[in-house]
C-alpha cells in the first residue's frame, strides 16, 4: 500500500508567489501549518466538495435547529391531519399557505416536522458511531501494524473474523440482544464497522514502521510508544479525516437500515428509516411517506460522500491522481 506523505515540495513549487521566489526553500513556514493551509485551498477549489460541505452544514443546522425550524411538534396528531376516512393528507395549499408542507403520516402528524427531528437521530448515530469505529480501528490497526509479532497475528485474525460476519446481520443480532436504544445502536454500529479502518490503518503502519525516520527516532533512543504516538499516528491523520467523513455516510445508512427493519431507533423517536418502515404499507396511496424520508437519507449520505471524496483528493492529491 502506498503511504500518505506529507510531502510539501510538489505543490510548493506551483504556488510559489513572486514575492518569495528569491527566498530559499528552507526558510518557509513549518510543514504542518503549510500542509493544512494548502489542503483548505485545494478543497475550496473543488466545487463538488464545497457542495458537499454546504449540504453537510445545512443538514447539521437543520438537526440543531429542529425545534425552531419545525412548524409543529413532531409527535402532535392533528385532527385535520387525516382525511375523513383516516388516510394521510398530502401536501396541499390552503389560503396560499401550506398547512402541512410535505403532507402528514398515518397518525396525522406533520411529516416535515418529523423529518427535521429525524435528522438529529441520524446525525447523532452517524457521527458518534463513526467516531467509535475510527477510534477502535485506528487503535487495533496501528498496534497490530507497529508492534507486530504474536499481537499482530491475534489482532488481524480477529479483524478477519469480524469482517466475515455479514455486517448488517451481526448488527441486527447485537441490537436485538441488547434491546434497541439510540446509545446501544451507536455502540453496535461502531463495534461492527471498525474492521475496514483497522485494515487500512494496519496497511499504512506496516509500510511506515521500517521507514528511515522511524529508524532514526529509534536510534536516538525513542521508546516504541513514543514513536507510535509522535511519528506514526500523525502520518495517519489524512486517512482518519477521510474515513471520519466517509464513514459517517455509511453509518447513517446502517442506522436507517436497522430502523427500517424495525430493529433500530424505536418509536416515538422519529428516525428516517423508521418513517419509511411505517409509511411502507401506504406507499400506493401516500407515496410521500416513503419518498421524503428516503430523500433525506440519500441527501445526507450523498453530502458526506461528496465531502469525503473531496477531502481525500485535497489531503492526498498525489495518490488520488489529481496532480
Amino acid at each position, binding site marked *: 500500500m502506498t503511504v500518505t506523505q506529507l510531502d510539501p515540495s510538489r505543490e510548493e513549487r506551483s504556488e510559489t508567489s513572486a514575492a518569495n521566489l528569491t527566498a530559499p526553500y528552507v526558510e518557509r513556514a513549518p510543514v504542518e501549518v503549510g500542509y493544512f493551509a494548502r489542503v483548505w485551498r485545494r478543497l475550496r477549489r473543488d466545487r463538488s466538495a464545497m457542495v458537499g460541505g454546504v449540504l453537510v452544514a445545512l443538514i447539521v443546522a437543520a438537526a440543531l435547529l429542529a425545534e425552531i425550524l419545525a412548524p409543529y411538534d413532531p409527535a402532535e396528531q392533528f385532527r385535520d391531519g387525516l382525511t375523513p376516512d383516516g388516510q394521510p393528507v398530502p401536501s396541499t395549499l390552503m389560503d396560499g399557505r401550506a398547512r402541512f408542507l410535505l403532507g402528514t403520516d398515518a397518525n396525522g402528524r406533520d411529516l416535515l416536522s418529523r423529518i427535521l427531528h429525524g435528522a438529529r437521530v441520524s446525525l447523532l448515530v452517524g457521527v458518534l458511531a463513526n467516531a467509535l469505529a475510527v477510534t477502535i480501528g485506528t487503535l487495533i490497526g496501528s498496534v497490530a501494524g507497529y508492534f507486530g509479532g504474536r499481537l499482530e497475528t491475534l489482532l488481524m485474525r480477529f479483524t478477519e473474523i469480524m469482517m466475515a460476519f*455479514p455486517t448488517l446481520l451481526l448488527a441486527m443480532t447485537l441490537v436485538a*440482544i441488547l434491546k434497541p436504544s439510540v446509545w446501544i445502536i451507536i455502540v453496535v454500529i461502531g463495534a461492527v464497522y471498525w474492521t475496514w479502518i483497522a485494515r487500512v490503518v494496519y496497511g499504512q503502519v506496516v509500510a511506515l514502521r521500517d521507514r528511515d525516520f522511524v529508524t532514526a527516532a529509534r536510534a536516538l533512543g525513542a521508546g516504541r510508544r513514543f514513536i507510535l504516538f509522535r511519528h506514526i499516528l500523525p502520518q495517519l491523520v489524512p486517512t482518519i479525516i477521510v474515513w471520519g467523513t466517509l464513514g459517517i455516510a455509511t453509518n447513517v445508512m446502517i442506522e436507517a*437500515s436497522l430502523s427500517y*427493519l424495525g430493529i433500530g431507533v424505536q418509536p416515538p423517536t422519529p428516525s428516517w428509516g423508521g418513517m419509511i418502515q411505517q409509511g411502507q404499507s401506504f406507499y*400506493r396511496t401516500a407515496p410521500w411517506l416513503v419518498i421524503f424520508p*428516503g430523500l433525506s437519507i440519500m441527501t445526507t449520505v450523498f453530502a458526506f460522500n461528496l465531502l469525503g471524496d473531496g477531502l481525500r483528493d485535497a489531503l492526498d492529491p498525489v495518490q488520488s491522481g489529481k496532480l
Partner: protein
Amino acid sequence: MWAYIGRRVLQAAPVLLGISIITFVLIYYLPADPARMYAGPSATVETVERIRHRLGLDQPLWVQYTRYMERVLQGDLGFSYRKQTAVTELILNRIPYTLALTFGGVLVELIIGLPVGIASAVARGRWMDRLGMFIALLGVSAPPFWLGLLLLYWLGFRVPIFPLGGAGSLAHLVLPALTAGLGGAAWYARMMRSSTLDILSTDYVRTARAKGLSTRGTIIRHVLPNALNPIITMAGMDIPWFIGGVVLVERVFDWPGLGRLAVEAIETVDVPLILGTVIVTSIIVVFSGILIDVVQALADPRIRHSRLAASG
C-alpha cells in the same frame, strides 16, 4: 491449483470456528429464555425446567457449545422453537431464492456498472462523465430499501409491469434484482472509471494507440483484461455488504430468502434459527471469498504463479 484451494479452505476453518464461538457466546447472554420460548407462555414452571434440562440449556456454556458444534458438523443445525421445524430444512428451502437474487443482483451490477465506468473514463471531464459520476454517487447514497419501494411504486403499481412482491416467476425477480444491484452498479462504475483511467495512461496503451489501435480495440484488448483484477478484489470485499443489502431487499419485496428468515428469527428471538442463519451466511461469505480468490488467480497469470509457488 487444487493445493491452493485446499490450503484456502483449511485457512477458512479457524475463521468459521471464531464466528461460531462469537455468535454462540453472544446468544448465550440473550436476555430471553429459550426454554420458556419453547414451552410457550402457558407452560408451568416445572415444564419449562424439564424442557431446559432436555435441551441441555442447564449445562455450562462450553458444554452447550461443543454439543452444538458436534451436531453442526453432522449437518444438524437444531430445531426452530417458533416454526417447529428443523433449522437445516428451513435454511435449505430458502437458499435457492437468495442465490437467485444474488446472481441477478451481481448481473445488474456488472451489466450497468462496468460499461458506465468505462464510458465515463473515456469521456473524462466531459459532461457525460460528470453526469455519469453524479448519478453513480447518488446511487451509492440511496438506501436500497427506498430504491426498492420507488421501483415498486412506479413499475409495479403506477405502470403495472412487474408483480408487487413475492416469488415464483422470472418476472418476480426483476425488481428485487435491480434493487439489489443498483447501488453496487454505481459503486462498480466509480471503481471501473478510476481503474480504466489508470490503464489508459500506461505506456502499453500509448504504444497501442500509436500503432493505430482504435478506442474500442484498446478497451477490449487492453483495458478490460487489466481492469478485471482490481474489480474482482472489490467484489470480494463487497460480499458481506451485498448480503446485508439482500436482507433489506428481501424485506421490501417479501422475497422468501435467507435474509428474511434471519430477520424473522431475530424478531421472534428464535435462538437456534438465529444461530443457524448467521453461521450459514458467514459460511457463504467465507466461501465466496475463496471463490473470488480462485477466479482472480485464474484471470491473472501473475497472481496464479505467485499463489501456486506459495502453496507448493
